[in-house]
């Protein structure tokens, strides 16, 4: 059974289609990342699945229920971490979690949730006195306290420092091992890569790819050959196939290519002719970020001549 089914979901605000015919299914227990630039429609899609917005057309089903008509019992099976909400500042983390735990039929023990989000040491701190990263983890704690079957995380780590992001990731990974279906939006490609087994890429309100990090990486972009010349290298004598790729400012060769053997052969024979070693030569795999940027709409010509 699919925990989530979106069928041609569309949301228009006036003549502006924030989400335009988005269809996908998420099986039970999968961790999906919805990626896209700001304004791609990620949050609008999520808000339709969470029941905040009614779609203009198309249908959504979450745990078999139309989210816009989801009742209290349904809400208790869903966990949410919204993009920007906040909590009453006056009470401690523990008191706040206790109040939210009371809303669910079978909540996780507050102490266990505090451990999961790594806030056990700050449990008695007032919510208003927390750092941004800590507050975000309280959001996550509230999202998971009711043992949700489906968890929506809308940019859970935006604005966090690298360490806080790692901690938030650990919390999400811990959940994924319990069989929770997770839908995560992010505009960090590394976050999606780290956490998700599936990527849905949105741009301008439409799905431009529904893939896996591995597939995106292997098929989405060119490899990079990079070499910094030593000071006296005879750069002028490079073969004509490589000469256009010299970055004179950096005194370096940067070749992005689908096919690495040709340029490498040319480079090695040039080094051989001049009795040079090539310390620091790099041949990098296709970058997930490049693939992502290509997928979300940096145009590429049909003939294949990039400008």
């Amino acid at each position, binding site marked *: 059974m699919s925990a989530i089914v979106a069928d041609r979901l569309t949301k228009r605000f006036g003549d502006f289609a*924030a989400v335009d015919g988005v*269809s996908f299914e998420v099986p039970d*227990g999968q961790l999906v990342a919805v990626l896209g*630039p*700001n*304004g791609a429609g990620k949050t609008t899609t999520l808000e339709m699945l*969470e029941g*905040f917005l009614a779609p203009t057309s198309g249908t959504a089903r979450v745990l078999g229920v139309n989210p816009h008509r989801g009742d*209290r*019992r349904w809400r208790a*099976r869903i966990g949410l971490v*919204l993009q920007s*909400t*906040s909590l*009453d500042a006056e*009470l401690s983390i523990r008191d706040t979690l206790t*109040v939210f735990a*009371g809303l*669910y*039929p*079978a909540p996780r023990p507050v102490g266990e949730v505090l451990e999961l989000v790594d806030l056990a040491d700050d449990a008695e701190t007032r919510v208003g006195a927390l750092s941004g990263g800590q507050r975000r983890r309280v959001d996550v704690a*509230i999202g998971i306290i009711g*043992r949700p*079957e489906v968890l929506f995380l809308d940019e859970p780590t935006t604005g966090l420092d690298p360490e806080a992001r790692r901690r938030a990731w650990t919390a999400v990974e811990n959940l994924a091992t319990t*069989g*929770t279906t997770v839908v995560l939006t992010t505009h960090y490609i590394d976050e999606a890569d780290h956490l998700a087994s599936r990527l849905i*890429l949105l741009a*301008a*309100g*439409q*799905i*431009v*790819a*529904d*893939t896996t990090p591995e597939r*995106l990486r292997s*098929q989405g*972009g*060119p490899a990079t050959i990079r070499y910094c010349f030593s000071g006296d290298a005879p750069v002028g004598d490079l073969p004509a*196939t490589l000469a256009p*790729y010299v970055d004179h400012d950096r005194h370096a060769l*940067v*070749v*992005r290519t*689908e*096919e690495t053997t040709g340029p490498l052969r040319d480079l090695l024979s040039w080094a051989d002719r001049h009795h040079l070693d090539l310390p620091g030569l790099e041949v990098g795999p*296709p970058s997930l970020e*490049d*693939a992502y*940027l*290509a997928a979300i*709409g*940096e*145009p*590429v010509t*049909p*003939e294949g*001549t*990039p*400008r």
Partner: protein
Amino acid sequence: MNITARAVTPRMPSAGRLLAAQIGYQARLLASGRAITIGVGLPVILLIASHGTHTQTGAAGLAGYAAFGLTLTAWNTYGVRLVAAREAGVLKRWRAAPLPRWCYFLGRIIATVVVAVAAGAATVAAGVLLYHSHLTASGALGALGVFVLGAFAWTACATSLTAVIPTLEAASPILMLTYFPVIIISGIFGSISEPHWLSTIASYLPAQPLAHAVAAALGHTAGHALLPARDLVVLAVWTVAGLAGAVATFRWEPHRPAQRRPARAPRPASPSGPGAQPASTGGDIEPPATLADATPGLKGHPKGHPERR
């Protein structure tokens, strides 16, 4: 797996339990904030300051200050906090929780009513203790009843007013501008010489009937009706109207300017754009395969991207 394991889930918590918990929670929030001290403290300070200069610390004067403390809490403190909670996204978070909306609201309103009634009662207590104002047991009970009704009327109306308050910055000015004129023409700080028509209007607004009914209760003598029925009817009508307005117009989400997609270059159907190859300016090196070519399960091709097939 997860879903089958939940086949024997315990029952949802009852609405009564949720409401009681919400009242307790909201009361704790109010009590831990400094905002309530103004509703309790200011009328008592005014009562003390005016004693001696004012001729009356009788029932009408005391009722006026008590009504002032009550309405300050039920209108200003409550209204500003409600707008602040909405704009910060607190309300949106609660709306997403498995709690009936009415439970959240009633919890919030009842907690405020309790604090507002306490503010009114504190003023009366100060009058009795400091200036030996007259108070009978039936008068105290009557005043308590009027306080409760008045606090409901003012919180209900404030809830409906928040729908037209766009931002937190606008909350105080709008709440004050709708508050002080009503308080003053209602004679809360002592009767003022005003045209008859203005007094008539005031008698249909929720402040003057509140103060008048409290004064009647405080100055109650045997043989007379404890509370003026007309005042109670006016307060009850405002309560119902306020709640109806709130149900019809209330917003849970922060006010946001209309969100537009960030300006992006239109996607041309013809070749253009920087692509992901800044160093490639020609030559025989192949461009990246487009993702759509390489991606099974691709759905929803964007318009304007026919080349991605």
